[in-house]
């Protein structure tokens, strides 16, 4: 999987690139629009991550260029400019997703994976982890071929944990992914706890190993023991 990151902020670009490389992507990082335009003219990418406010203009230019060249790649806009118009304009121009700064790297990872799944396999693929199988298109989860019934939140929680497997995810990170700004943070932690508890129980009852590890004081990690 090849990604292009357009981000003018050195320290931020560096940490995003490092994270994505750690996730097993090939990630090229450019710092301004002309460079990005050069890259997309020559190479093919699976997904392009764009900042909007750049020294030489708006990242939306790159979205336009990608659409003109009819390149089949996912586009995620990463921007602090979280005004509604920018968001709508970006999505209108053909961006697949919009992630306002500051964001969690794991959230970015989850969005990239989701776009790649949709693009590559028309959403038909399965995510397999040992005895666990998730079919995102049908929102189905199977353990050893037996379907388990999860609530929407439990399903989203499992998918998010699995997408970011082997990584420690903070409680606020997961809560934000599940609830957005819907509910005040303080209460979401209680829900999260009960969601995790229920999910664990359902999985273990169906014969799965308990992959969800609690990391003391911080959050959770989905990994093989």
């Amino acid at each position: 999987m090849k990604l292009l990151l357009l981000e003018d902020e050195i320290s931020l670009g560096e940490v995003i690139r490092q994270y994505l490389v750690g996730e097993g992507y090939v990630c090229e990082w450019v710092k301004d629009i002309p460079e990005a335009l050069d890259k997309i003219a020559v190479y093919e990418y699976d997904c392009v991550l764009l900042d909007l406010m750049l020294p030489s203009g708006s990242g939306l230019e790159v979205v336009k260029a990608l659409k003109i060249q009819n390149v089949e790649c996912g586009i995620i806009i990463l921007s602090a400019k979280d005004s509604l118009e920018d968001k709508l304009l970006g999505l209108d121009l053909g961006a697949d997703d919009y992630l306002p700064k500051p964001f969690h790297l794991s959230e970015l990872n989850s969005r990239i994976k989701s776009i790649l799944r949709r693009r590559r396999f028309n959403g038909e693929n399965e995510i397999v982890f040992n005895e666990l199988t998730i079919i995102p298109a049908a929102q189905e989860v199977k353990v050893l071929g037996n379907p388990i019934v999860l609530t929407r939140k439990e399903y989203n929680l499992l998918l998010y944990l699995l997408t970011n497997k082997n990584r420690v995810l903070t409680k606020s990170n997961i809560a934000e992914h599940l609830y957005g700004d819907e509910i005040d943070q303080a209460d979401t932690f209680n829900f999260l706890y009960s969601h995790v508890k229920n999910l664990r129980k359902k999985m273990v009852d169906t014969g799965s190993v308990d992959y969800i590890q609690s990391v003391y004081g911080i959050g959770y990690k989905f990994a093989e023991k």
Partner: protein
Amino acid sequence: MKLITKASRIFLITCSIALVIGTFLGVIIFKRIMSDEATEHLLNQRLKVENYVLQNKQLPTNQFTLSDSLWFTSESSIKGYELKDTLFYNYIEAEPLMYRKISFGVVSNGNKYTASILKPMYETEDLTEAIVLTLFGIVLLIVSALFVTNYLISKRLWQPFHQTLESLSGFKITQRDSLVFAQTDVSEFNQLQEQLSDLTNKVRSDYQSLKSFTENASHELQTPLSVIGSNLEMLIQDENLTENQLKQISQLIDSLGKVSKLNQTLLLLTKIENRQFATTEKTDLSEVLENKLALLHTWVNHKSIDVKTVILPDVCIHISPYLLEILLNNILGNAIKYNTHNGKLNIHLSDDKLVIENLGAKPDYSTEEMFGRFRKGRSNGDSLGLGLAIVKQICETYQFEISYNYTNDFHSLTIQFK
């Protein structure tokens, strides 16, 4: 009150007062003059009678050559001179009328007489009345003419002012072009238009720079926050961290979350204040409210809150959908957050208002302070205390009236739509 009405009113009041005082004074002065005239006339006739008696040594045979109404009465002694107003019965008019009478002593051939002369005063009354009425009529006519002319001229003169006012009322802070005013040759109005042009241009440019400032500030702050957050996220992946170190990092992450939330919220407040959410749509509040409640279901269940709703269908208001979402999130969120366990939540939506009541502890501060920024109860360290400030700002933007009170353990928030 319109300017022209005010000017006309002042004009009319002044004229009326002047007219009344003028008429009053006129009557007094006129009467005084007539009275003096009458007295002078009587004194003249007295002189004439005395001269006649002195020259002819007898009373006049034909009294009417000297005066219209002169008569003599013989007296035993000489009476002094006397001037007084008396009523005499007038046979022609068939009523008692006012006369001025002068009487004085005359001696003729050793006989003593009193001569009396009458002068009718009632004629004076009639004359005064006629003159005053005429004068009053003329003045009234002049005043009316002046008034009408003044009214018409004022209306014409102030026309550019009204046009300018009209242009100004169409001014929007977000508009791209300068205001255009109708031409006028009155220098005061020209000056007014110039000042207004300068002012509105300044306001527009300030607004633009403020708008871009908020966006830039957001960008400049969010980026470092992103850098810190992302690095902390990377850091906690390290397997070699001790429990203590993890705890410290977790505190950093929590605080960072607060800072970035605070930044977003303050920016949101500024944006609402600057009216940067220009898009208002006719929104079905009933539907949005029902959806929101469905989303909050888990939370409500979690706290075992008894929810009672009376939601009138198809209640529509004009609002930015984004702001409506924030508004409902905040008020419903508060009603759940500050509710007691096994508490109560009543939601009542009617055509013109939304009332949300919830059980909860008595607030730590007065109801007036409720909507202030950074207001939070002692027990809510996590809260930013900006939720109700945002709610209030949104309500102000759309001229909704918001009120809060606390009675019988119930917090009650009412939003009245216009």
